[in-house]
Protein backbone atom coordinates (compact mmCIF):
# COMPACT_ATOMS: atom_id res chain seq x y z
CA UNK A 1 0.00 0.00 0.00
CA UNK A 2 1.19 3.46 -0.82
CA UNK A 3 1.12 5.96 1.95
CA UNK A 4 1.45 9.62 1.21
CA UNK A 5 3.50 10.36 4.27
CA UNK A 6 3.27 13.56 6.20
CA UNK A 7 6.77 14.65 7.07
CA UNK A 8 5.05 17.93 7.50
CA UNK A 9 7.77 20.48 7.29
CA UNK A 10 5.50 22.77 5.28
CA UNK A 11 3.01 25.39 6.35
CA UNK A 12 -0.22 25.64 4.33
CA UNK A 13 -0.82 29.19 5.45
CA UNK A 14 2.37 30.20 3.64
CA UNK A 15 1.16 29.02 0.21
CA UNK A 16 0.24 32.16 -1.74
CA UNK A 17 -3.49 32.65 -2.31
CA UNK A 18 -5.27 35.03 -4.67
CA UNK A 19 -5.90 38.47 -3.30
CA UNK A 20 -8.67 38.68 -0.69
CA UNK A 21 -9.88 42.00 -2.08
CA UNK A 22 -11.06 40.14 -5.20
CA UNK A 23 -13.77 38.39 -3.17
CA UNK A 24 -14.83 41.70 -1.60
CA UNK A 25 -15.04 43.39 -5.00
CA UNK A 26 -17.31 40.62 -6.28
CA UNK A 27 -19.64 41.04 -3.30
CA UNK A 28 -19.85 44.79 -3.78
CA UNK A 29 -20.40 44.40 -7.53
CA UNK A 30 -23.24 41.91 -7.09
CA UNK A 31 -24.93 44.13 -4.46
CA UNK A 32 -24.83 47.12 -6.81
CA UNK A 33 -26.23 45.05 -9.68
CA UNK A 34 -29.10 43.81 -7.48
CA UNK A 35 -29.89 47.33 -6.26
CA UNK A 36 -30.06 48.51 -9.85
CA UNK A 37 -32.38 45.64 -10.77
CA UNK A 38 -34.81 46.55 -7.98
CA UNK A 39 -34.68 50.23 -8.93
CA UNK A 40 -35.36 49.40 -12.59
CA UNK A 41 -38.30 47.15 -11.73
CA UNK A 42 -39.88 49.90 -9.64
CA UNK A 43 -39.34 52.52 -12.33
CA UNK A 44 -40.95 50.39 -15.02
CA UNK A 45 -43.89 49.70 -12.74
CA UNK A 46 -43.33 45.96 -12.90
CA UNK A 47 -44.87 43.90 -10.17
CA UNK A 48 -46.47 40.49 -10.06
CA UNK A 49 -49.88 41.82 -8.98
CA UNK A 50 -50.22 43.77 -12.20
CA UNK A 51 -49.31 40.67 -14.14
CA UNK A 52 -51.96 38.66 -12.29
CA UNK A 53 -54.58 41.40 -12.78
CA UNK A 54 -53.84 41.48 -16.50
CA UNK A 55 -54.23 37.74 -16.99
CA UNK A 56 -58.05 37.72 -17.39
CA UNK A 57 -57.80 40.38 -20.14
CA UNK A 58 -55.14 38.32 -21.80
CA UNK A 59 -57.26 35.18 -21.78
CA UNK A 60 -60.25 37.14 -23.10
CA UNK A 61 -58.14 38.22 -26.06
CA UNK A 62 -57.05 34.64 -26.66
CA UNK A 63 -60.72 33.51 -26.55
CA UNK A 64 -61.66 36.19 -29.05
CA UNK A 65 -58.90 35.04 -31.34
CA UNK A 66 -59.99 31.42 -31.25
CA UNK A 67 -60.62 29.83 -33.63
CA UNK A 68 -58.49 31.47 -36.32
CA UNK A 69 -60.62 32.32 -39.31
CA UNK A 70 -58.98 30.36 -42.13
CA UNK A 71 -61.35 31.87 -44.64
CA UNK A 72 -59.31 35.06 -44.37
CA UNK A 73 -56.17 33.25 -45.46
CA UNK A 74 -56.43 33.99 -49.23
CA UNK A 75 -56.39 37.70 -48.46
CA UNK A 76 -53.17 37.17 -46.51
CA UNK A 77 -51.23 35.49 -49.30
CA UNK A 78 -50.25 38.74 -50.91
CA UNK A 79 -48.82 40.38 -47.76
CA UNK A 80 -47.00 37.13 -46.93
CA UNK A 81 -45.40 37.06 -50.35
CA UNK A 82 -44.46 40.69 -49.84
CA UNK A 83 -42.82 39.76 -46.52
CA UNK A 84 -40.76 37.03 -48.17
CA UNK A 85 -39.85 39.36 -51.02
CA UNK A 86 -38.69 42.07 -48.62
CA UNK A 87 -36.45 39.49 -46.93
CA UNK A 88 -35.09 38.12 -50.22
CA UNK A 89 -34.26 41.50 -51.76
CA UNK A 90 -32.91 42.93 -48.49
CA UNK A 91 -30.72 39.90 -47.81
CA UNK A 92 -29.42 39.67 -51.36
CA UNK A 93 -28.44 43.31 -51.79
CA UNK A 94 -27.03 43.53 -48.26
CA UNK A 95 -24.98 40.35 -48.67
CA UNK A 96 -23.58 41.51 -52.02
CA UNK A 97 -22.49 44.88 -50.59
CA UNK A 98 -20.98 42.92 -47.67
CA UNK A 99 -18.44 41.27 -49.99
CA UNK A 100 -16.20 44.30 -50.61
CA UNK A 101 -16.82 45.60 -47.09
CA UNK A 102 -15.72 42.35 -45.44
CA UNK A 103 -12.62 42.17 -47.65
CA UNK A 104 -11.68 45.71 -46.64
CA UNK A 105 -12.34 44.94 -42.98
CA UNK A 106 -10.07 41.85 -42.84
CA UNK A 107 -6.40 42.40 -42.09
CA UNK A 108 -5.41 39.22 -43.89
CA UNK A 109 -6.64 40.68 -47.19
CA UNK A 110 -6.43 44.44 -46.73
CA UNK A 111 -2.87 45.40 -45.81
CA UNK A 112 -3.65 49.13 -45.73
CA UNK A 113 -4.04 49.72 -42.03
CA UNK A 114 -5.90 53.04 -42.27
CA UNK A 115 -8.45 51.75 -44.75
CA UNK A 116 -8.84 48.62 -42.61
CA UNK A 117 -9.61 50.57 -39.45
CA UNK A 118 -12.03 52.92 -41.24
CA UNK A 119 -13.91 49.98 -42.81
CA UNK A 120 -14.14 48.21 -39.47
CA UNK A 121 -15.43 51.37 -37.83
CA UNK A 122 -18.12 51.96 -40.46
CA UNK A 123 -19.13 48.30 -40.30
CA UNK A 124 -19.54 48.45 -36.53
CA UNK A 125 -21.38 51.76 -36.78
CA UNK A 126 -24.00 50.30 -39.13
CA UNK A 127 -24.42 47.39 -36.74
CA UNK A 128 -25.09 49.50 -33.68
CA UNK A 129 -28.38 50.86 -35.09
CA UNK A 130 -31.29 48.45 -34.39
CA UNK A 131 -33.18 47.12 -37.42
CA UNK A 132 -36.54 48.48 -36.38
CA UNK A 133 -35.00 51.93 -35.97
CA UNK A 134 -33.72 51.80 -39.55
CA UNK A 135 -37.22 50.84 -40.67
CA UNK A 136 -38.85 53.65 -38.67
CA UNK A 137 -36.39 56.23 -40.03
CA UNK A 138 -36.81 55.13 -43.64
CA UNK A 139 -40.61 55.00 -43.32
CA UNK A 140 -40.41 58.62 -42.19
CA UNK A 141 -38.10 59.43 -45.09
CA UNK A 142 -39.73 57.62 -48.04
CA UNK A 143 -43.21 56.80 -46.77
CA UNK A 144 -45.15 53.68 -45.77
CA UNK A 145 -44.68 50.46 -47.77
CA UNK A 146 -42.25 47.64 -48.42
CA UNK A 147 -39.47 49.85 -49.82
CA UNK A 148 -38.29 51.26 -46.45
CA UNK A 149 -38.46 47.68 -45.13
CA UNK A 150 -36.09 46.51 -47.85
CA UNK A 151 -33.67 49.34 -47.10
CA UNK A 152 -33.72 48.53 -43.38
CA UNK A 153 -32.92 44.89 -44.11
CA UNK A 154 -30.13 45.85 -46.53
CA UNK A 155 -28.39 47.74 -43.74
CA UNK A 156 -28.96 44.95 -41.24
CA UNK A 157 -27.82 42.17 -43.62
CA UNK A 158 -24.79 44.15 -44.68
CA UNK A 159 -23.74 44.71 -41.08
CA UNK A 160 -24.11 41.10 -39.95
CA UNK A 161 -22.79 39.32 -43.05
CA UNK A 162 -19.82 41.71 -43.30
CA UNK A 163 -19.03 41.34 -39.60
CA UNK A 164 -19.13 37.52 -39.59
CA UNK A 165 -17.38 37.18 -42.96
CA UNK A 166 -14.57 39.57 -42.08
CA UNK A 167 -13.96 37.64 -38.87
CA UNK A 168 -13.76 34.38 -40.81
CA UNK A 169 -11.48 36.08 -43.33
CA UNK A 170 -9.08 37.01 -40.55
CA UNK A 171 -8.81 33.33 -39.64
CA UNK A 172 -8.10 31.94 -43.13
CA UNK A 173 -4.84 30.27 -44.13
CA UNK A 174 -2.62 33.08 -45.44
CA UNK A 175 -0.12 30.67 -47.02
CA UNK A 176 -2.05 30.41 -50.31
CA UNK A 177 -2.41 34.20 -50.42
CA UNK A 178 1.36 34.53 -50.23
CA UNK A 179 1.81 31.81 -52.84
CA UNK A 180 -0.43 33.53 -55.39
CA UNK A 181 1.05 36.94 -54.60
CA UNK A 182 4.56 35.67 -55.32
CA UNK A 183 3.42 34.39 -58.71
CA UNK A 184 2.87 37.98 -59.82
CA UNK A 185 -0.93 37.99 -59.80
CA UNK A 186 -2.77 41.23 -59.06
CA UNK A 187 -4.87 41.80 -55.94
CA UNK A 188 -8.15 40.75 -57.54
CA UNK A 189 -6.61 37.53 -58.87
CA UNK A 190 -5.06 36.79 -55.48
CA UNK A 191 -8.49 37.16 -53.84
CA UNK A 192 -10.16 35.11 -56.56
CA UNK A 193 -7.82 32.10 -56.33
CA UNK A 194 -6.72 32.04 -52.70
CA UNK A 195 -9.40 33.83 -50.64
CA UNK A 196 -12.70 33.02 -52.37
CA UNK A 197 -12.41 29.20 -52.15
CA UNK A 198 -11.61 29.45 -48.46
CA UNK A 199 -14.39 31.85 -47.52
CA UNK A 200 -17.24 30.98 -49.93
CA UNK A 201 -18.91 28.25 -47.79
CA UNK A 202 -18.90 30.45 -44.67
CA UNK A 203 -20.15 33.46 -46.60
CA UNK A 204 -23.07 31.57 -48.10
CA UNK A 205 -23.87 30.06 -44.72
CA UNK A 206 -23.90 33.49 -43.05
CA UNK A 207 -26.12 34.89 -45.81
CA UNK A 208 -28.62 32.05 -45.34
CA UNK A 209 -28.59 32.62 -41.61
CA UNK A 210 -29.26 36.32 -42.09
CA UNK A 211 -32.07 35.42 -44.50
CA UNK A 212 -33.66 33.37 -41.70
CA UNK A 213 -33.40 36.32 -39.32
CA UNK A 214 -34.72 38.65 -42.03
CA UNK A 215 -37.85 36.56 -42.57
CA UNK A 216 -38.57 36.94 -38.85
CA UNK A 217 -37.72 40.63 -38.90
CA UNK A 218 -39.77 41.39 -41.99
CA UNK A 219 -42.88 40.00 -40.26
CA UNK A 220 -42.60 42.78 -37.67
CA UNK A 221 -41.30 45.54 -39.94
CA UNK A 222 -44.93 46.30 -40.78
CA UNK A 223 -45.51 47.38 -37.19
CA UNK A 224 -43.70 50.62 -38.05
CA UNK A 225 -45.30 50.77 -41.49
CA UNK A 226 -42.55 49.14 -43.50
CA UNK A 227 -44.75 46.73 -45.44
CA UNK A 228 -45.39 43.01 -45.34
CA UNK A 229 -47.59 40.84 -43.15
CA UNK A 230 -46.79 42.91 -40.04
CA UNK A 231 -48.71 45.82 -41.51
CA UNK A 232 -51.74 43.57 -42.10
CA UNK A 233 -51.46 42.29 -38.53
CA UNK A 234 -51.43 45.85 -37.20
CA UNK A 235 -54.53 46.73 -39.22
CA UNK A 236 -56.37 43.60 -38.07
CA UNK A 237 -55.64 44.33 -34.41
CA UNK A 238 -56.63 47.98 -34.74
CA UNK A 239 -59.93 46.95 -36.35
CA UNK A 240 -60.54 44.27 -33.64
CA UNK A 241 -60.42 41.51 -36.26
CA UNK A 242 -58.87 39.15 -33.72
CA UNK A 243 -59.62 35.92 -35.56
CA UNK A 244 -57.88 37.27 -38.64
CA UNK A 245 -54.95 38.33 -36.44
CA UNK A 246 -54.77 34.79 -35.05
CA UNK A 247 -54.62 33.39 -38.57
CA UNK A 248 -51.72 35.73 -39.31
CA UNK A 249 -49.85 34.73 -36.16
CA UNK A 250 -50.24 30.98 -36.79
CA UNK A 251 -49.27 31.33 -40.45
CA UNK A 252 -46.25 33.47 -39.55
CA UNK A 253 -45.18 30.83 -37.08
CA UNK A 254 -45.42 28.15 -39.78
CA UNK A 255 -43.53 30.26 -42.31
CA UNK A 256 -40.67 30.98 -39.91
CA UNK A 257 -40.34 27.33 -38.95
CA UNK A 258 -40.30 26.17 -42.58
CA UNK A 259 -37.68 28.75 -43.61
CA UNK A 260 -35.55 27.93 -40.56
CA UNK A 261 -35.65 24.21 -41.29
CA UNK A 262 -34.75 24.59 -44.95
CA UNK A 263 -32.00 27.08 -44.23
CA UNK A 264 -30.50 25.01 -41.42
CA UNK A 265 -30.42 21.92 -43.64
CA UNK A 266 -28.74 23.89 -46.42
CA UNK A 267 -26.15 25.32 -44.04
CA UNK A 268 -25.34 21.91 -42.62
CA UNK A 269 -24.53 20.74 -46.13
CA UNK A 270 -22.18 23.65 -46.72
CA UNK A 271 -19.73 23.08 -43.92
Amino acid at each position, binding site marked *: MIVVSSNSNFDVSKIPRPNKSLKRNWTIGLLIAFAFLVYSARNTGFNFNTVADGLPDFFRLIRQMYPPKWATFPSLIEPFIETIQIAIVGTFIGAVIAIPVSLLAANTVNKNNKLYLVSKFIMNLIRTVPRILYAAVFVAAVGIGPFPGVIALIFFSLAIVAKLTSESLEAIDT*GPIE*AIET*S*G*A*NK*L*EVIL*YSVVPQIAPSYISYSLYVFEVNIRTSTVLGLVGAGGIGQTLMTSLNLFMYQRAATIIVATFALVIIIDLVSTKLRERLI
Partner: protein
Amino acid sequence: MSVLEYKNLSVTYPGGVEALKNVSFEIEKGEFIVVVGLSGAGKSTLLRATNRLVDATGGEVLFNNQDITKVNKRELRDIRSDIGMIFQSFNLIKRSSVFRNVMAGRASHLPTWRNLLGIYPEHDKDIVFNSLDRVNILEKAFARADELSGGQQQRVGIARALAQEPQVMLADEPVASLDPPTSHMVMKDLQNINRELGITVIVNLHFIDLAKEYGERIIGLNNGELVFDGPAEATDKETFEMIYGRSITAEEEIGRDSSVI
Protein backbone atom coordinates in the same frame (compact mmCIF):
# COMPACT_ATOMS: atom_id res chain seq x y z
CA MET B 1 25.22 36.75 -67.64
CA SER B 2 24.00 36.43 -64.10
CA VAL B 3 20.28 36.04 -63.61
CA LEU B 4 20.42 37.15 -59.98
CA GLU B 5 22.90 39.32 -58.22
CA TYR B 6 22.89 40.19 -54.55
CA LYS B 7 24.90 43.31 -53.72
CA ASN B 8 25.55 44.01 -50.03
CA LEU B 9 22.05 42.81 -49.23
CA SER B 10 21.01 43.51 -45.65
CA VAL B 11 17.66 42.83 -44.01
CA THR B 12 16.86 44.05 -40.53
CA TYR B 13 13.40 43.16 -39.25
CA PRO B 14 11.29 45.76 -37.43
CA GLY B 15 12.09 44.07 -34.10
CA GLY B 16 15.78 44.81 -34.67
CA VAL B 17 16.84 41.30 -35.70
CA GLU B 18 19.56 41.45 -38.37
CA ALA B 19 18.57 38.53 -40.58
CA LEU B 20 21.05 39.28 -43.38
CA LYS B 21 24.25 41.30 -43.17
CA ASN B 22 25.97 42.55 -46.32
CA VAL B 23 25.43 39.43 -48.38
CA SER B 24 26.91 39.56 -51.89
CA PHE B 25 27.03 36.89 -54.59
CA GLU B 26 25.89 36.21 -58.14
CA ILE B 27 23.85 33.40 -59.62
CA GLU B 28 24.31 32.31 -63.23
CA LYS B 29 21.43 31.18 -65.40
CA GLY B 30 20.75 27.45 -65.01
CA GLU B 31 22.56 26.91 -61.72
CA PHE B 32 21.23 24.59 -59.02
CA ILE B 33 22.01 26.26 -55.72
CA VAL B 34 21.43 24.95 -52.23
CA VAL B 35 21.48 27.38 -49.35
CA VAL B 36 22.38 25.81 -46.01
CA GLY B 37 22.62 27.07 -42.46
CA LEU B 38 21.01 26.66 -39.08
CA SER B 39 17.44 27.80 -38.64
CA GLY B 40 17.60 31.54 -38.07
CA ALA B 41 20.74 31.87 -40.20
CA GLY B 42 18.85 33.91 -42.80
CA LYS B 43 18.06 31.27 -45.46
CA SER B 44 14.37 32.09 -45.65
CA THR B 45 15.03 35.82 -45.56
CA LEU B 46 17.42 35.47 -48.51
CA LEU B 47 14.77 33.74 -50.63
CA ARG B 48 12.01 36.07 -49.51
CA ALA B 49 14.11 39.13 -50.32
CA THR B 50 14.57 37.70 -53.83
CA ASN B 51 10.90 38.19 -54.72
CA ARG B 52 10.39 40.96 -52.17
CA LEU B 53 8.20 39.14 -49.73
CA VAL B 54 10.47 40.96 -47.31
CA ASP B 55 11.95 44.36 -48.03
CA ALA B 56 15.69 44.83 -48.09
CA THR B 57 16.90 47.44 -45.62
CA GLY B 58 20.20 47.82 -47.45
CA GLY B 59 21.89 46.82 -50.70
CA GLU B 60 20.40 45.57 -53.94
CA VAL B 61 18.91 42.47 -55.49
CA LEU B 62 19.31 42.50 -59.25
CA PHE B 63 17.10 40.25 -61.36
CA ASN B 64 18.32 40.44 -64.96
CA ASN B 65 20.00 43.70 -63.97
CA GLN B 66 16.76 45.20 -62.63
CA ASP B 67 16.91 46.20 -58.96
CA ILE B 68 14.00 44.44 -57.26
CA THR B 69 14.27 46.62 -54.18
CA LYS B 70 13.44 49.74 -56.22
CA VAL B 71 10.80 48.68 -58.75
CA ASN B 72 7.18 49.85 -58.55
CA LYS B 73 4.20 47.55 -57.98
CA ARG B 74 3.54 46.92 -61.66
CA GLU B 75 7.18 46.04 -62.35
CA LEU B 76 7.33 43.90 -59.22
CA ARG B 77 4.38 41.81 -60.45
CA ASP B 78 6.16 41.33 -63.79
CA ILE B 79 9.35 40.20 -62.07
CA ARG B 80 7.43 37.94 -59.69
CA SER B 81 5.74 36.18 -62.59
CA ASP B 82 9.25 35.20 -63.74
CA ILE B 83 10.14 33.75 -60.33
CA GLY B 84 8.33 30.66 -59.06
CA MET B 85 8.28 29.73 -55.40
CA ILE B 86 7.47 26.61 -53.44
CA PHE B 87 6.97 26.40 -49.69
CA GLN B 88 7.54 24.10 -46.75
CA SER B 89 3.80 23.97 -46.05
CA PHE B 90 2.92 23.73 -49.77
CA ASN B 91 0.46 26.64 -49.51
CA LEU B 92 -2.09 25.03 -51.80
CA ILE B 93 -5.72 26.13 -51.81
CA LYS B 94 -7.06 23.00 -50.14
CA ARG B 95 -10.68 23.23 -51.23
CA SER B 96 -9.82 23.82 -54.89
CA SER B 97 -8.98 21.21 -57.49
CA VAL B 98 -5.37 20.48 -58.41
CA PHE B 99 -6.09 21.95 -61.85
CA ARG B 100 -7.32 25.21 -60.37
CA ASN B 101 -4.37 25.37 -57.99
CA VAL B 102 -1.94 25.09 -60.88
CA MET B 103 -3.98 27.48 -63.03
CA ALA B 104 -3.58 30.00 -60.20
CA GLY B 105 0.13 30.00 -61.02
CA ARG B 106 -0.83 30.94 -64.56
CA ALA B 107 -3.05 33.85 -63.42
CA SER B 108 -0.43 36.56 -63.88
CA HIS B 109 -0.11 35.65 -67.57
CA LEU B 110 -3.84 35.95 -68.22
CA PRO B 111 -6.12 38.99 -68.38
CA THR B 112 -8.07 39.47 -65.14
CA TRP B 113 -11.44 38.92 -66.87
CA ARG B 114 -10.35 35.45 -67.96
CA ASN B 115 -9.41 34.59 -64.39
CA LEU B 116 -12.71 35.99 -63.14
CA LEU B 117 -14.84 34.00 -65.57
CA GLY B 118 -12.63 30.92 -65.55
CA ILE B 119 -12.39 30.92 -69.35
CA TYR B 120 -8.87 29.74 -70.08
CA PRO B 121 -7.19 29.54 -73.51
CA GLU B 122 -6.24 26.03 -74.68
CA HIS B 123 -2.58 27.06 -74.67
CA ASP B 124 -2.70 27.81 -70.93
CA LYS B 125 -4.60 24.62 -70.13
CA ASP B 126 -1.86 22.75 -71.99
CA ILE B 127 0.77 24.41 -69.83
CA VAL B 128 -1.13 23.37 -66.69
CA PHE B 129 -1.43 19.73 -67.78
CA ASN B 130 2.19 19.63 -68.94
CA SER B 131 3.38 21.05 -65.62
CA LEU B 132 1.43 18.35 -63.79
CA ASP B 133 2.79 15.69 -66.13
CA ARG B 134 6.35 16.82 -65.52
CA VAL B 135 6.02 16.12 -61.78
CA ASN B 136 4.16 12.86 -62.49
CA ILE B 137 0.84 13.80 -60.98
CA LEU B 138 -1.29 14.39 -64.06
CA GLU B 139 -3.83 11.74 -63.03
CA LYS B 140 -4.71 13.84 -59.97
CA ALA B 141 -5.59 16.93 -62.01
CA PHE B 142 -9.26 16.91 -61.02
CA ALA B 143 -8.87 15.73 -57.44
CA ARG B 144 -9.30 18.17 -54.58
CA ALA B 145 -5.93 19.36 -53.30
CA ASP B 146 -6.64 18.26 -49.72
CA GLU B 147 -7.19 14.66 -50.85
CA LEU B 148 -3.49 14.39 -51.75
CA SER B 149 -0.60 13.17 -49.62
CA GLY B 150 2.12 15.60 -48.52
CA GLY B 151 4.51 14.54 -51.26
CA GLN B 152 1.80 14.85 -53.91
CA GLN B 153 0.82 18.28 -52.59
CA GLN B 154 4.38 19.50 -52.85
CA ARG B 155 4.53 18.28 -56.44
CA VAL B 156 1.37 20.27 -57.16
CA GLY B 157 3.21 23.21 -55.58
CA ILE B 158 6.07 22.67 -58.02
CA ALA B 159 3.62 22.34 -60.93
CA ARG B 160 1.96 25.61 -59.90
CA ALA B 161 5.33 27.37 -59.95
CA LEU B 162 6.20 25.69 -63.26
CA ALA B 163 2.98 26.93 -64.85
CA GLN B 164 4.40 30.43 -64.45
CA GLU B 165 7.11 29.39 -66.92
CA PRO B 166 9.61 31.02 -64.58
CA GLN B 167 13.30 31.71 -65.09
CA VAL B 168 14.05 31.11 -61.42
CA MET B 169 12.51 28.70 -58.94
CA LEU B 170 12.81 29.40 -55.23
CA ALA B 171 12.19 26.54 -52.80
CA ASP B 172 11.97 27.38 -49.11
CA GLU B 173 12.60 24.16 -47.13
CA PRO B 174 10.52 22.17 -49.64
CA VAL B 175 11.05 18.81 -47.94
CA ALA B 176 11.04 19.79 -44.27
CA SER B 177 7.60 18.26 -43.69
CA LEU B 178 8.10 15.16 -45.87
CA ASP B 179 9.44 11.68 -45.16
CA PRO B 180 12.87 10.67 -46.60
CA PRO B 181 11.75 8.79 -49.76
CA THR B 182 9.27 11.53 -50.67
CA SER B 183 11.94 14.15 -50.01
CA HIS B 184 14.22 12.51 -52.52
CA MET B 185 11.41 12.40 -55.05
CA VAL B 186 10.69 16.11 -54.67
CA MET B 187 14.40 16.96 -54.90
CA LYS B 188 14.60 14.89 -58.11
CA ASP B 189 11.66 16.80 -59.56
CA LEU B 190 13.52 20.03 -58.87
CA GLN B 191 16.69 18.55 -60.39
CA ASN B 192 14.78 17.55 -63.52
CA ILE B 193 13.24 20.94 -64.14
CA ASN B 194 16.70 22.45 -63.64
CA ARG B 195 18.40 20.10 -66.06
CA GLU B 196 15.68 19.71 -68.67
CA LEU B 197 14.13 23.17 -68.69
CA GLY B 198 17.20 25.16 -67.69
CA ILE B 199 15.34 26.86 -64.83
CA THR B 200 17.66 28.29 -62.19
CA VAL B 201 16.83 26.64 -58.85
CA ILE B 202 17.61 27.96 -55.38
CA VAL B 203 16.70 25.60 -52.54
CA ASN B 204 16.93 26.16 -48.80
CA LEU B 205 17.78 22.95 -46.99
CA HIS B 206 18.97 22.01 -43.57
CA PHE B 207 19.83 18.40 -44.48
CA ILE B 208 23.48 18.41 -45.50
CA ASP B 209 23.35 15.06 -47.29
CA LEU B 210 20.50 16.28 -49.52
CA ALA B 211 22.44 19.48 -50.10
CA LYS B 212 25.51 17.57 -51.23
CA GLU B 213 23.58 15.11 -53.35
CA TYR B 214 21.44 17.57 -55.32
CA GLY B 215 23.21 20.89 -55.03
CA GLU B 216 25.77 21.94 -57.61
CA ARG B 217 26.78 24.98 -55.67
CA ILE B 218 26.45 25.46 -51.93
CA ILE B 219 25.85 28.80 -50.25
CA GLY B 220 26.45 28.73 -46.51
CA LEU B 221 24.85 31.25 -44.16
CA ASN B 222 25.68 31.71 -40.52
CA ASN B 223 23.96 34.32 -38.41
CA GLY B 224 23.04 36.40 -41.48
CA GLU B 225 26.47 36.33 -43.04
CA LEU B 226 27.70 34.53 -46.13
CA VAL B 227 30.35 32.15 -44.80
CA PHE B 228 30.67 29.69 -47.67
CA ASP B 229 30.22 29.77 -51.44
CA GLY B 230 31.56 26.91 -53.50
CA PRO B 231 30.86 23.79 -55.56
CA ALA B 232 29.17 20.92 -53.74
CA GLU B 233 32.06 18.55 -54.52
CA ALA B 234 34.40 20.82 -52.59
CA THR B 235 32.39 20.47 -49.39
CA ASP B 236 33.06 17.96 -46.63
CA LYS B 237 32.07 17.50 -43.01
CA GLU B 238 34.43 20.28 -41.91
CA THR B 239 32.85 22.71 -44.37
CA PHE B 240 29.40 22.14 -42.90
CA GLU B 241 30.71 22.32 -39.36
CA MET B 242 32.22 25.65 -40.26
CA ILE B 243 28.88 26.86 -41.74
CA TYR B 244 26.87 25.60 -38.79
CA GLY B 245 29.43 26.79 -36.27
CA ARG B 246 29.16 23.48 -34.42
CA SER B 247 29.55 19.76 -34.97
CA ILE B 248 27.09 17.99 -37.23
CA THR B 249 24.35 15.91 -35.58
CA ALA B 250 22.21 13.08 -36.92
CA GLU B 251 19.34 15.52 -37.38
CA GLU B 252 21.20 17.23 -40.18
CA GLU B 253 21.02 14.08 -42.32
CA ILE B 254 17.88 12.70 -43.90
CA GLY B 255 19.38 9.34 -44.88
CA ARG B 256 20.06 7.54 -48.13
CA ASP B 257 17.56 7.44 -50.92
CA SER B 258 15.59 4.31 -50.14
CA SER B 259 13.39 4.76 -53.21
CA VAL B 260 16.24 4.02 -55.66
CA ILE B 261 15.52 0.85 -57.54
